C-alpha cells in the first residue's frame, strides 16, 4: 500500500506545483501584456500638458475706447480678463472667468456691477462676489496707464 501510495502522493504533490508555476507564468505574462496594451491607451487619452509662457503684462485697451461706466474683455495669455471703468473714471482689471462655473463675466452699466449671465452671479467694482452663486472674488490685476495705453499686470 505504502509503496503504491507514496510515490503517487509525491507525484500529486509535484504536479500541481509545476502547474502552479506555469499558471503563474501565464498569469503574469497575460497581466503584463494587458498592461502593455492599456497603459499607452490610458496615457494617450489624457491630454498633454501644454506649457505656455505665462504672460505677466498686456496692453488691454486704449484709454479712449473705454468711456466711464463701461467694461471690456481683453485677452490675457489664453484666458479672458475684464477691464472696467467706473462712473467716476477709476480703472480696474480682473480675471473675467467667473469663480462659480467658468463662464465669462461682463460689465453691466445699469447695475454698475460685474455680472455673469450663466447663473446670475454678481461682483462689485472691487471684484468681490456680492450676489448669486459665485463662491470667491474675481482675481484682481494691477492697472497702469502708459500714455494712451492701459496696461494690465498680474499682481
Amino acid at each position: 500500500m505504502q509503496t503504491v501510495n507514496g510515490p503517487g502522493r509525491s507525484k500529486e504533490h509535484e504536479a500541481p506545483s509545476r502547474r502552479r508555476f506555469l499558471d503563474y507564468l501565464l498569469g503574469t505574462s497575460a497581466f503584463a501584456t494587458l498592461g502593455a496594451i492599456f497603459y499607452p491607451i490610458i496615457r494617450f487619452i489624457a491630454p498633454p500638458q501644454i506649457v505656455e509662457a505665462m504672460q505677466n503684462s498686456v496692453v488691454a485697451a486704449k484709454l479712449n475706447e473705454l468711456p466711464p461706466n463701461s467694461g471690456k474683455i481683453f485677452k490675457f495669455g489664453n484666458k479672458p480678463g475684464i477691464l472696467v471703468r467706473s462712473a467716476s473714471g477709476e480703472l480696474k482689471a480682473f480675471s473675467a472667468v467667473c469663480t462659480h462655473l467658468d463662464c465669462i463675466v461682463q460689465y453691466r452699466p445699469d447695475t454698475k456691477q460685474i455680472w455673469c449671465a450663466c447663473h446670475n452671479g454678481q461682483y462689485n467694482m472691487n471684484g468681490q462676489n456680492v450676489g448669486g452663486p459665485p463662491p470667491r472674488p474675481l482675481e484682481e490685476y494691477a492697472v497702469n496707464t502708459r500714455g494712451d495705453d492701459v496696461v494690465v499686470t498680474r499682481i
Partner: protein
Amino acid sequence: MSLDQIRIWLDERLSLGSVSEIARKKEVPVHRHSIWYYFGGMTLFLFTVQVVTGILLLLYYRPSAENAFESVQFIMTEVKFGWLIRSIHSWSANLMIATLFIHMFSVFFMRAYNKPRELTWLSGVGLLFISIAFGFSGYLLPWNEVSFFATKVGTDIAGVVPVIGHSMLRFLRGGDEVTGATLTRFFGFHVAVLPALATVFIGVHVLLVQLHGMHVPRRYEHNHGYMKFFPNFFLRDLIGWILAIGVLAALAALFPWELGVKADPFAPAPAGIKPEWYFLFMFQTLKYIPARILGIEGEVLGILAFMLGGLVWVVIPFINREPEQRRRILIFNVFGVFVVLYIVVMTIVGYLA
C-alpha cells in the same frame, strides 16, 4: 428563382423558421395601462431617426473650431434639404429624451423594475446616461456661443467631483480649457464611442425584454388579455412612428433649429443663456444654491447631491426589493411624484426666469 425558393434557400442556412416561430409567439398584455408599452419602441424609433440623420450630417460636417460653425451654416443654407435634416436631428434628439423620460417614469410607477427585471432597469438607466451624453456632446458640435458656454459649465461641473474631478475635466476638454481640442473629442464621443455603447446597451435591453416578456402591473395580473405582437401591436407601433415622422417634419419646417452666433472664447456669456431643457432643472437649482453652505462651496454640495440622486435612481430595484408591499408602494410613489414635480417645476421656473 422564385421568391419561395429564395426563402427556402435562406431557411436551410439560417433556420429562419425558429425566428419566425418566436415572432409568432410574441404577445403583448392588454389592460388599462397598455398605452405605456409604446414609449420604449417610440424611443428606439427616434434613435434610428438620429442614426440616419446623423450619418447624413456627417457627409458635410467638419469637426474643428475653425470650420464647424461654417460647415453647419453651409448645411443649413446651401445643401438641399440641409435645414430639414439638421432640424430633424435636433428635434428628434429632444423628442427622444422626452419619450425616454416618459418610458422610464412609467416603468418606475408601475414597478416594472421588480425581480426578475433589475438588469433591464440597469441597462435602461445606462441608456438614459448614454442619451444625455449624446445630447451634451452633440450640443457643442455647431460651435456656437450657447453651446460653448454650456460645455464650459458642464465640464466645469465634472471638475467639481472630489479626487478624480480634475483629470476628468482634462479628459473631457482635451486640455485645461474648452477649445478646438474639446470639439474634436466631443465629435469622437458623439459619432463613435457613444453609438458603439448605445448599440450594446440597446441590444441587451431589448434582449432582456424578449426574455422576460412585458411586465404586467400587479392589479391586472389575473385580469388582462393578450394581443399578438405581429402584426397587431407592431402595426400600432408603426402608426405611432408615422405620426412621429409627421410631427418631426412639422417641427423642422415651422421651427427650424437655430444656429446662433459663432463661439468666441473671449466674449462674455450672452444674457439669458440657458442649457437644453433636460438640464434646465439642474441649472435652475445651481442658481438658487447659495455660495457657501456650512463652509463648503454651495455648487459642490449641489452637484454632489445630484450625483447621489442619480446613484439612488440607478439602484432603485435593489433598494425596493418588495415593491408590492402597501407601505412601500406609498413611499416610492410619493418619492417618484416628488422627483417628477421637482423636475417639472424647476424646468418651468427656468423657462420663465
